[in-house]
């Protein structure tokens, strides 16, 4: 295990100025499915660089091409075009060697529901060539880490969604991976379960493991990612740290006004002049401004508008996405 990690690290190139080495480096990466008339481009020429030790995110709505990208990085789907290096190696020729250094948490659970929690981990360790004994002790260690020790002998079928996710994360760590790929790690979980997962991922990040995650939750991206790219329709619309993205594409604050009758077109005309920029959604109007309170006051001043609520909040990645694509992330 550690041998594979060393091998990989001697082969990879470092980025300029001796910064952390790039564990993923993609140039003009393309993934297309089907041929001829049925050809569908899922990933349309993206450039990505993920550095060792960072938590990197792909933020985008369903169908943006996040999973397709993750599968190419995880060496389970060949790229259609462009170049890709993962852990310094070429997925086209070194798939098994790369995968030996990766942990994968796929979008769809691939746990065997009929096996016990522990057996799911143990057999997975075998897939990496670990001896049975090592698999068993590693399994117990990881169950401790994801707080599932007490469910060790339960069938996976009997676990809640959040527990299954944690088990999948534990499983992805069996081989001591250098980088973990998480495809929508908390989609479908309730808020409580999400926080437990986030907390484990923070812990993992602190221990120096590189994380790549996809999400369509802007709060997840904000919480977990050092850097992220906003992805839409197979392309990267923008990239940077959450703070940089907000600074570059939004004002600091946002005023949300909800018309009582749900009719937004006319109030939008009236309010347009009150902010640097407004966005009109089906049920509310967003006013982008550097001073939320002043703008909110000006909005409420328009007594002729029947507004159910006016609130001020900080700008988020959701707003960045809206700005870049004209659409909301979660529909």
């Amino acid at each position, binding site marked *: 295990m550690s041998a594979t990690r060393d091998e990989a690290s001697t082969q990879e190139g470092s980025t300029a100025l001796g910064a952390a080495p790039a564990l993923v480096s993609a140039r003009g990466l393309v993934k297309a499915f089907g041929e001829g008339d049925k050809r569908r481009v899922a990933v349309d020429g993206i450039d990505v660089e993920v550095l060792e030790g960072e938590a990197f995110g792909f933020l985008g709505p369903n169908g943006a091409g996040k999973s397709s990208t993750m599968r190419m990085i995880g060496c389970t*789907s060949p790229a259609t075009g462009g170049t890709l290096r993962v852990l310094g190696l070429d997925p086209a020729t070194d798939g098994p060697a790369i*995968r030996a250094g990766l942990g994968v948490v796929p979008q769809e659970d*691939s746990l*065997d*529901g*009929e096996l016990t929690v522990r057996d799911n981990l143990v057999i997975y360790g075998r897939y990496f060539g670990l001896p049975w004994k090592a698999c068993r002790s590693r399994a117990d260690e990881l169950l401790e880490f994801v707080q599932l020790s007490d469910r060790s002998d339960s069938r996976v079928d009997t676990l809640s969604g959040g527990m299954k996710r944690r088990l999948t994360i534990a499983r992805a760590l069996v*081989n001591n991976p250098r980088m973990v790929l998480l495809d929508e790690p908390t989609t479908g979980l309730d808020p409580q379960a999400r926080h437990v997962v986030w907390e484990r991922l923070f812990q993992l990040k602190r221990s120096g493991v590189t994380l790549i995650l996809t999400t369509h939750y802007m709060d997840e991206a904000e919480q977990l990612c050092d850097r992220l790219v906003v992805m839409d329709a197979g392309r990267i619309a923008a990239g940077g740290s959450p703070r940089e993205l907000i600074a570059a594409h939004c004002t600091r604050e946002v005023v949300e006004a909800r018309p009582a009758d749900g009719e937004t077109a006319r109030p939008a005309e009236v309010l347009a002049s009150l902010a640097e920029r407004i966005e009109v959604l089906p049920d509310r109007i967003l006013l982008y401004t550097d001073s939320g309170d002043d703008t909110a006051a000006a909005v409420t001043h328009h007594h002729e508008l029947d507004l159910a609520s006016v609130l001020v909040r900080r700008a988020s990645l959701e707003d960045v996405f809206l700005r870049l694509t004209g659409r909301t992330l979660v529909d």
Partner: protein
Amino acid sequence: MRTALPAMEYWLLRNRRYWRTQLSAMTVGPVLYLAALGLGVGSLVDDNVGADGVQGVDYLAFIAPGLLAVTAMQQGFEESSWPVIGALRWWGSYPAQQVTSLRTRDVLTGHLLYVTVKLTAAVTVFTAIAALFGAFDSAWVLAAAPASVLCGVAHAAPIAAFSITRRVEMSIAAFYRFVILPTSLFSGAFFPISQLPAGLEQVAYVTPLWHGVDLCRDLALGEATFAASLGHVAYLALWAVGGYLLALRLYARRLAP
């Protein structure tokens, strides 16, 4: 082969809990078939054509090696048809394996190794039971058992190739009904294919099952010739290897689109 062992271990682990059910299925089937056909139908046949009336032996001795080959084919089908769909879609088996150090080749090979283990168990149980029924006179039957394993693999490999391309379970049931069942009945296991209408006899020659049946029967009766056995083994190996190579391509297409 060695790199595929963990994938085989998965299947053993997964099926460990069912070993009693599986052993009883392996036992009850042969007992019923040998009793109903070997003894029941057999007494009728022997009364009419004499105790050495079917290719020179009684009906039980005729049918037992045929049933051995059919058992191997059915078992091969059983473990490489819907389990392939399950492994791909329901149990997470293949999706989990493919993101690890295992290669697509290991995923397939591991599954087929497990099928081989299961086949070996099934034909061993069958051979023991048939021996208790007094179906075998020659110690050559010990060579028929491995021959039947080959027959099972010759079916399992192409069936795995077929199954990995299926999106619905239904087509597996149809495959059984329209391919496996007719092949079982008309490939010489229950009656010599010379009894088939012209045309169908030639079809039977092409089926790998007929070669398995003929090989097992000649071996069990101690009548095998080297040349004929080699021919049968080569033909079965062709199906096994051809099926494996085809499955490899189709697995790669499905697992790494």
